[in-house]
């Protein structure tokens, strides 16, 4: 008997026992639904949790500070940096040349004054700008930042707009922002190389008296950012002037690249930094770090190579931080959760396959006469076995396919509900990808399990003595 004929006979048998076939398929489908939904949800949750750990960047990301290594902190995820140390293109190229390094992303921070959106800034407002402190505080990561408290001014209805304040802008290669620890909370990122767009952080919202949920309120508004510079004329007191630019806020982000409430293009930050770094005389300049880059974000080839890359960068003399120990620990827990959820689904599938075996055993009992007739007219043992295996395979394939589709649909439904909740909480939602491996594995696994379940009944049918089958008639 040819495979096609065996398939046709199996299909006929399934059609004629439609009720039982439907119930058997339903059992497999439900099990496959459970398995697919659990594994998909677990996988998505894993991605989300790890994404939170890496702050939206790759898990294999390493932050290199423009600071020396603190020897006592080498083995920690987030070490305290040592004294400032310049990070320039030479160092960047050396790190890029390391074999385990995938890419190196520069970060430039610049001190600025900010004037939030309020009716267009006027000369009067510019004149009331507070002076930039002559000594700039250095953060633990070595990036410059300043804080100037200002009295809130009532401006936008319902919102308190702060007065001008000193902050830090962080410049990155926006075209590669997806590789960095940046999560968009509202709006979008500035377009690459833009000199007119900026994204702000939650800190900016806090200044406005807004919560994360209200992030969208600032998108589309404008903010003026001014890079300060000191001018000293002989016999005159020091004067501060700023290079002002009016930027449109296009998004609100959570970013961990460097401390700073304004995320801009690398060009924008470089220009601001260059303006500030140049002064009329050395003594009068603002004391900002001399490092061209305030940090580098290094991406290792994979998570396993993060430690090696960190060691190599440490040998170059720079302090690094990466959540490698935390990620490894969380990954272990997540793996356990995935195994447990997968096992629950697998158990359901095994139970369903027992249903297939039971249905087929019943079919063998009922069809003793049919099997006998088949043998009497010349069917070989393997012909009979083939028919029953086909039947099992079809039940598994149909059940698996329907169930896998149902499972994915369930996961989509769950993710929609979760996203609704996360959005209400002002958090970025989860994106449910198409887990092709999971879907294909579920269908193939269901079919194989059904074939395994059908093997015993099929063998029993095949071994049924022809004469005994005739007696059943």
């Amino acid at each position, binding site marked *: 008997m040819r495979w096609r004929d065996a398939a046709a006979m199996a299909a006929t048998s399934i059609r004629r026992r439609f009720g039982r076939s439907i119930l058997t398929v339903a059992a497999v489908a439900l099990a496959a639904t459970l398995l697919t939904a659990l594994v998909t949800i677990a996988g998505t949750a894993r991605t989300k949790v790890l994404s939170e750990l890496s702050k939206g960047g790759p898990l294999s990301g390493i932050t290199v500070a423009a600071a020396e290594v603190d020897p006592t902190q080498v083995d920690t995820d987030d070490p305290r940096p040592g004294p400032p140390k310049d990070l320039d293109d030479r160092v960047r190229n050396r790190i890029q040349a390391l074999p385990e390094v995938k890419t190196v992303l520069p970060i430039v921070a610049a001190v600025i004054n900010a004037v939030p959106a309020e009716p267009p800034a006027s000369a009067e407002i510019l004149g009331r700008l507070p002076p930039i402190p002559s000594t700039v505080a250095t953060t633990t990561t070595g990036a410059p930042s300043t804080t100037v408290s200002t009295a809130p001014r009532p401006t936008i209805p319902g919102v308190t707009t702060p007065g001008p304040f000193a902050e830090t802008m962080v410049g990155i290669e926006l075209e590669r922002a997806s590789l960095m620890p940046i999560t968009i909370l509202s709006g979008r990122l500035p377009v690459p190389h833009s000199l007119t767009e900026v994204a702000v952080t939650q800190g900016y919202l806090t200044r406005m008296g807004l919560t994360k949920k209200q992030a969208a309120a600032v998108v589309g508004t404008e903010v003026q950012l001014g890079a300060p510079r000191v001018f000293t004329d002989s016999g005159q007191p020091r004067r501060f002037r700023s290079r002002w630019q009016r930027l449109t806020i296009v998004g609100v982000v959570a970013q961990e690249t460097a401390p700073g409430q304004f995320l801009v293009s690398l060009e924008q930050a470089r220009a601001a930094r260059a303006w500030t770094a140049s002064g009329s005389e050395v003594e009068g300049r603002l004391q900002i770090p001399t490092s061209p880059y305030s940090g580098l974000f290094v991406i290792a080839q994979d998570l396993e190579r993060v430690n090696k890359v960190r060691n190599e960068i440490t040998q170059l003399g720079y302090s690094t931080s990466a959540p490698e120990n935390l990620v490894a620990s969380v990954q272990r827990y997540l793996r356990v959760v995935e195994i447990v959820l997968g096992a629950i689904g697998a158990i359901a599938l095994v139970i369903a396959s027992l249903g297939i075996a039971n249905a087929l055993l019943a079919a063998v009992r009922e069809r003793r*006469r049919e099997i006998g007739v088949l043998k009497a007219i*010349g*069917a070989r*043992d393997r012909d009979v076995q083939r028919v029953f295996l086909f039947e099992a395979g079809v039940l598994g394939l149909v059940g698996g396919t329907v169930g896998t589709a149902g499972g994915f649909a369930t996961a989509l439904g769950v993710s929609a509900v979760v996203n609704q909740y996360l959005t209400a909480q002002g958090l970025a939602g989860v994106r449910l990808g198409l887990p092709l491996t999971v879907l294909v594995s579920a269908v193939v696994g269901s079919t194989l399990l059904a074939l395994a379940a059908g093997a015993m009944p099929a063998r029993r049918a095949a071994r049924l003595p022809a004469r005994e089958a005739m007696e059943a*008639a």
Partner: protein
Amino acid sequence: MGVAITLRGLSHTYRTSDGPLTVLGGLDLDVTDGGYAAVTGPSGAGKTTLLSLLGGLEQPQKGKIEVGGLDLTELSGDGLAAYRRATVGFVFQHFGLLETLTAAQNVELAGTLNGATPAERRARALHLLDAVGLADRAGHRPSRLSGGERQRVAIARALVNQPKLLLADEPTGNLDDDSAAMVIELLEAVRHEHRCTLVLVTHHRDLAARAEQHVALDRGRPVATPV
């Protein structure tokens, strides 16, 4: 062409809860090529076992069976299956039709097992159904056919692979007299047309009397000489 049958010292015993049950005890029998033999006897005489052994449904435990020069004692598994496909056509008392298939599909089934293409076996099935007078019932399932019609479908199926040996196990057992007569006449006509050897098991002595050779069995042994 038919086949000659030679049985020598054929014995067969079944294990039962009451101990071994010998249903054939040293049976000798010869049926000529193209011959027509009827086997009669009371229940438990070994008629069906004899037919089962001749049809290769099971292997003989003792003795020798030669069908067309082929020693069935040397065959097993696939060999017996091939013998059944190529040489034997079965007609059963209970028709042995698959309820899930139509009359034509039932007839086609034997061709399916023989590796015929769908077109070939379809054409052959319709031709044979026409030959047994059931061309108009080709698409009907067995449940919609009368007993006589079912048995004619079974005969058509038995003829699909042009068997050399036709084995009929009480083919009229479940039929009324008219249908029984029609089926017997059909079997005899088929035997003449196809020149195959026919072995018929029956309870009816009058049907057995129509055969060229009559073997009466009792407890696995012949009790009367052939007619």
